[in-house]
């Protein structure tokens, strides 16, 4: 399979305030990319703009998945085209069982032409698949009966997102700090799960501060974002450098981007999901 996610000169505003100022990024199917950068640099914004959050206005540039222009699509169409984002703080949907939610989601993503009201994946078939995936990811079977993210601990939410990714098997997945707020064991488990499900089977864009996640998922490319732009790209060694030494060198090397970053974090926090 060969697919390409191509982001060109992407400018994104939230409430008319510019956040991304010309992002260029190409991810091929099967590659792992790390996206790093200080707080407020625009990492989550890039993810949400790709996923199609309605509050993130694309003012310039394009996001293409193969020949399809994602920028023209609603979030659900992008999902059906093969884009997935694991959210930092996924919302709860009270009263909706995780299994029912995933069954509907998987049906729509696997059958992008499905019309509303048409049949879902047969219950028995879906349950079997879900059970197998949950065993693989060492997730308590009770999860399926619980309401979507409702009353979940931080770790449970992250694992539910990974399970969702496993069930939807997208072409490209953005993981937004899927390791944050977890203890060491949980990070190890999440990292191993992502490697098992994602590596070579999709294009991965991993937003992270941690090295554990990248240890299990060594990136071919590391991108550093500052002030709404990708200012530097390197290999796995760049991720290690940033993890060990922080962003001082980057901030000094790119004073314009640093100034933009300071200006952005001085403003209100952008909407996070």
């Amino acid at each position, binding site marked *: 399979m060969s697919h390409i996610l191509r982001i060109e000169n992407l400018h994104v505003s939230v409430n008319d305030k510019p956040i991304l100022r010309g992002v260029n990024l190409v991810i091929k199917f099967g590659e792992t990319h790390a996206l790093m950068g200080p707080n407020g640099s625009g990492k989550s914004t890039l993810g949400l703009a790709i996923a199609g959050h309605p509050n993130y206005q694309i003012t310039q540039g394009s996001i293409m998945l193969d020949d399809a222009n994602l920028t023209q699509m609603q979030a*659900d169409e992008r999902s059906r085209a093969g884009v997935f984002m694991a959210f930092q703080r996924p919302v709860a949907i009270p009263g*909706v069982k995780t299994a029912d939610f995933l069954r509907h989601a998987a049906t*729509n993503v696997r059958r992008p032409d499905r019309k509303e009201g048409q049949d879902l994946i047969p219950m028995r078939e879906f349950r079997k698949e879900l059970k197998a995936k949950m065993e693989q990811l060492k997730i308590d079977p009770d999860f399926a009966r619980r309401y979507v993210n409702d009353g979940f601990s931080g770790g449970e939410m992250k694992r539910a997102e990974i399970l969702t990714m496993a069930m939807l098997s997208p072409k490209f997945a953005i993981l937004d700090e899927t390791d944050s707020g977890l203890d060491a064991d949980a990070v190890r488990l999440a990292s191993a799960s992502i490697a098992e499900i994602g590596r070579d089977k999709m294009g991965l864009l991993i937003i992270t501060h941690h090295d554990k996640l990248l240890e299990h998922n060594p990136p071919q490319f590391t991108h550093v974002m500052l002030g709404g732009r990708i200012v530097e790209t390197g290999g796995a060694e760049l991720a290690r450098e940033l993890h060990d030494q922080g962003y001082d060198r980057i901030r000094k090397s790119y004073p314009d981007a640093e100034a933009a970053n300071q200006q952005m974090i001085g403003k209100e926090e952008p909407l996070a999901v």
Partner: protein
Amino acid sequence: MTTSAMTDKLDSTETFGQPAFDRLLEKRIDPTWLTAKRKEAWETYQSIDWPNPRDENWMRSDIRGLRLSNFAPNIDESVEIPEGTPVRLLEGVDVSASVRSVNGMVVSESLDEALGAQGVIVGSLSRCARDHSALVERYLHSLISPKSDRFAALQAAMWSDGYFIYVPRNVRVEKPIHLHAAMADGQVDLSHTLIVLESGAEATVLFESSSPDLDAKGLHCGGIELIQHGNSHLRFVNLQDWGKGTWHFAHQRASVGRDAQLQWTVAAMGAKFAQVDQRVELVEPGARSQVNGVLFTQDRQHLVYNTLQHHKAPHCISDFLYKSVLQDRSRTVWRGMIKVSEGAQKTDGYQRNDNLMLSDSARADSIPGLEINADDVRCTHGSTSGRVDEELIFYAQSRGFTRSEAIRMIVTGFFQQIFDRITIQSVREALGAAIARQVRQYE
């Protein structure tokens, strides 16, 4: 008689005047006690005013568009069930008895023979008032006073027919009893429902009302009385799905005796305007009641529910949960009251109302209240109202749901808490399907 702007055009001296009432009495074959009761109610109807818009229960109601002259009481013999009238609560249900009415007149009745042999009575209220005269006389309008308001008086005087269910002592009716009220376009349903469970009796009653088409006009002015003696169990489901041009006025009362249990599920989806006065009285120690209310409105529908959970005896439990979802420019009003009488110690009362608005023009009024005259009680109440959360919609969309699928799912989830309380699976499914059908396509 004074009138107000709300009701000055309401009256009709023709279709609902003295000649109409006289004709009705002449046509009917009622026992003397019933004729006397009707006359007494008619006196009340003629001597009191229409509800005053300054009255707390009516101040959020709008009945300016109601003209009684557009309607006439049905005193003729029954007609056919209008084609296309939906029946929603029967799917997958094996019933023990069934009564169907059209325009407030019963057209069919059936009852399992074995139950009849045990003394169970199910059928037309008019017929039962003759065949089981003493029994019906004892209970009819024992909970609803014709003086409650002018609609109650009109209904007590002119009720056309309805349903009577009687379950004798210690008899368990295993399979549900189904009641269906159909009303043709432009017609009137002045029906009354009377259900009596003797000590230790058990029954499940599924009662639905519907019109042959979505926009059907009509006038329903009805009453429901549920009388439960000691240790009886009643599950009562009431689905109001009239056409969206129908006026619906109802007084609904339950009286729950010692250690008896009532589970009352109300689902209201139909009618242009509805004013429902629902009261559950816990009259002897140990009585328990659970009320589950599901309201789903659209267009310019306006549904008003005034509920009262009245603890008259100690050690009783009442638990009311009403949830509404509103679309378009529709409006719901829920006014809940927990009343604890003097001496009703160890009362456990709970009421909650949650509203989910799917449009900016919808409006939900929620007015919980407590009136407590005992000092050792636990009463809690609460309400929430809010718009459907865009972040939830985006989350579902990012997982492949279309916007309208996402909203439908969020609405279903919102009602799930109530569905989890409803112990009859077919009812959960029927309501779930009806709700899913009604969620609009949202762009």
